[in-house]
C-alpha cells in the first residue's frame, strides 16, 4: 500500500474538530428520506402503472387539460399582477415614511399567516352575488364568484407577499448614490426608474413572481370555495387530484400531480435561466 498524501486524497467531507457531524447528518438524511424522498418517489413512480399512454391520457384528457390550463394561466396572471403591485408596495414601504407603516408592513404577510380555508370562505362571502363587493360587480354585469375570475382573485390574495418580500431587501440595499449619479448626469426620474432602479430589482422581481406562481399553481384551500368547481370551466388541477383520489383512482391522481410538478419545474427552470441571463448582461 502506498500512502496517498492527505491533501490529494478525494474526500467527500472536509475534516473538522466540531463534534456531531455523523449524528446531525444522519438524522437529516434519514428524516428527509422518510418525509420527503420516499413519498415523492411514490408520486413519480405510481402513475406509470397506467403505462406511458395511460399517463398521457390521464394528464391530457379534456377535463385534466382544462384544469391544468386554468391553474397555470390564472397562476401566471396572478403572478404578473402581484409583480406589478408588489413592486409598488415594496417601493412605498422602503422609500416613503407615513403613519402606520409598521402595521402595513406586517399586514403584507397576512396571506402567509391566514389559513387558506379561512381566506377561501372570506373571499367567497365578499365576492358572492349578495356579498359587499359581489353585489356591486353584479350590478355592472361582472360575475366573480363561481367563475375563473374568482380563481384569479384568490390566487392574487395568496401570492401577494412573495414579490414584496423578495424585492424589499434588495431595494433597501440599493445604493442611492447610483441614482444620484444618474440624476447629476441629467437622467429624468422615469429614465432613472427604468435604467437604474428596475434593472437592479429585476432578478428579485422575477424570483418573487416565480415563487408566487409556484404557490398559485398548487393552491387549493383559498380557491375551491370561490371557484364553483365546474368541470372544464372553473375546476383547478389540485381539486381534480382530490376528485380522482376520492374515486380511488390513485394512478390517475398521481399522473395529474406529476404533470403539475413537471410543468411548474419547467417554468421555474426557465425563470432561473432568465435570471442568469439578466445577471450576466448586468455584469457585462
Amino acid at each position, binding site marked *: 500500500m502506498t500512502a496517498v498524501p492527505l491533501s490529494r486524497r478525494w474526500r467527500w467531507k472536509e475534516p473538522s474538530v466540531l463534534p456531531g457531524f455523523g449524528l446531525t447528518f444522519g438524522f437529516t438524511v434519514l428524516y428527509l428520506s422518510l418525509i420527503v424522498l420516499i413519498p*415523492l418517489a411514490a408520486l413519480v413512480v405510481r402513475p406509470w402503472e397506467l403505462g406511458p399512454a395511460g399517463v398521457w391520457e390521464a394528464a391530457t384528457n379534456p377535463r385534466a387539460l382544462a384544469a391544468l390550463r386554468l391553474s397555470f394561466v390564472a397562476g401566471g396572471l396572478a403572478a404578473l399582477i402581484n409583480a406589478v403591485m408588489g413592486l409598488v408596495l415594496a417601493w412605498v414601504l422602503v422609500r416613503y415614511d407615513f403613519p402606520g407603516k409598521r402595521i402595513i408592513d406586517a399586514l403584507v404577510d*397576512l396571506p402567509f399567516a391566514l389559513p*387558506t380555508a379561512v381566506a377561501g*370562505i*372570506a373571499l367567497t362571502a365578499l365576492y358572492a352575488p349578495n356579498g359587499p363587493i359581489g353585489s356591486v360587480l353584479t350590478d355592472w354585469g361582472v360575475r366573480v364568484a363561481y367563475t375563473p375570475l374568482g380563481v384569479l382573485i384568490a390566487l392574487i390574495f395568496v401570492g401577494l407577499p412573495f414579490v414584496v418580500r423578495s424585492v424589499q431587501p434588495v431595494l433597501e440595499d440599493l445604493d442611492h448614490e447610483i441614482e444620484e449619479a444618474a440624476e447629476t448626469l441629467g437622467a429624468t*426620474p422615469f429614465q432613472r426608474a427604468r435604467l437604474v432602479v428596475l434593472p437592479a430589482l429585476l432578478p428579485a422581481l422575477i424570483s418573487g413572481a416565480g415563487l408566487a406562481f409556484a404557490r398559485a399553481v*398548487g393552491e387549493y384551500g383559498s380557491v375551491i370555495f370561490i371557484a364553483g368547481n365546474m368541470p372544464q370551466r372553473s375546476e383547478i388541477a389540485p381539486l381534480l387530484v382530490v376528485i380522482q*383520489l376520492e374515486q380511488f383512482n*390513485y394512478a390517475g391522481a398521481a399522473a395529474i400531480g406529476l404533470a403539475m410538478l413537471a410543468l*411548474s419545474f419547467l417554468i421555474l427552470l426557465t425563470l432561473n435561466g432568465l435570471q442568469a441571463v439578466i445577471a450576466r448582461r448586468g455584469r457585462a
Partner: protein
Amino acid sequence: MSAVRRSPVRGLAPLLIGVALLWLALVVLLPLGMVFAEAFRRGLDGFLDAFSEPDAWSAVRLTLLVAAISVPLNALFGLAAAWCITRYEFRGKALLTTLIDLPFSVSPVISGLVWVLLFGTAGWFAPLLDALGVRVIFTVTGLVLATILVTLPFVARELIPLMQQQGADEELAAVTLGAGPWAIFSRVTLPNVRWALLYGVLLCNARAMGEFGAVSVVSGHIRGLTNTLPLHVEILYNEYDFVGAFATATVLASLALVTLLIKSLLEWRFADELAATRRH
C-alpha cells in the same frame, strides 16, 4: 439610509402610497374584516353557538395535538440540518439544501396525496399495514405525516442563513476550551440562534395549525375524530352554517394575527439575531 427623501416627481409619493394602501385594503384587509363581520352576523349568541358543539372542541384539541407533534419534530430537524449544513464542508450540500426547500414548491394537495399513495387502501405499504393492523390514512398519524411534510422547511430555512452568517468561530473556541458536544450546543449555539429558532417555530406552528389542503386529503373528514379546525370550517360552510363557519374561522384568523404580531416584534426587537433577509 433615511427613508424620507425628496420625491423625484411632485405628487408621486402620495399617489404611490395611496395606490399601495388601497390595494392592501382591497386584497388583504377586506377579506380579514369579512371573517369577523360574518361571524357576528347573528350577534354574540350566534357567534357563541358555534362553540357549544362538541365537534368544535374536538377539532380544537386535534389541531393542537397535530401541531404539538409536528412542530417539535421539525424544529429538531431544523437544528440538525442547520448544524450539519453550516458547520461542515461536504459534497452534496447544495442538493441537501435544495431538498429541504422542496416541500414549499409542492402543492399541499400533493403533500397529502403522496401519503395515500404509500399507505392508502391501494398504497405501496397497504399489505404491511394490514398485517400489522395499523391504519395511517383517515387517522391522526396521517394528519401528522401530512403536516410534517408541509411545514418541514420553516425552521431550517430560518436557521441555515443565520448560522452561515455567524460562522463557526465561537463553537471552535468552545472546543479549544474543552467543551463537550452538549455544552457547545446548549451554551454557544442555542443562545446564538434562539430568536431565529423561535421565529421559525412560530411560522411553522401557524402553518401546521392552519394547513388545509394536505390534511384534507388524508383526513377522511370524520367528525369528532379526524377533523382539524380548518376542516371543521369547511364542513360547517358546506352545510350552509355560515355563521358557525366564520365563527370558527375567527379563531384561526386570530391565530394568524397573533403570529404576525409576535413575528413583527421579533423582527423589530431582535433584528440582529435573525437572518439578514428578515430585518426590515
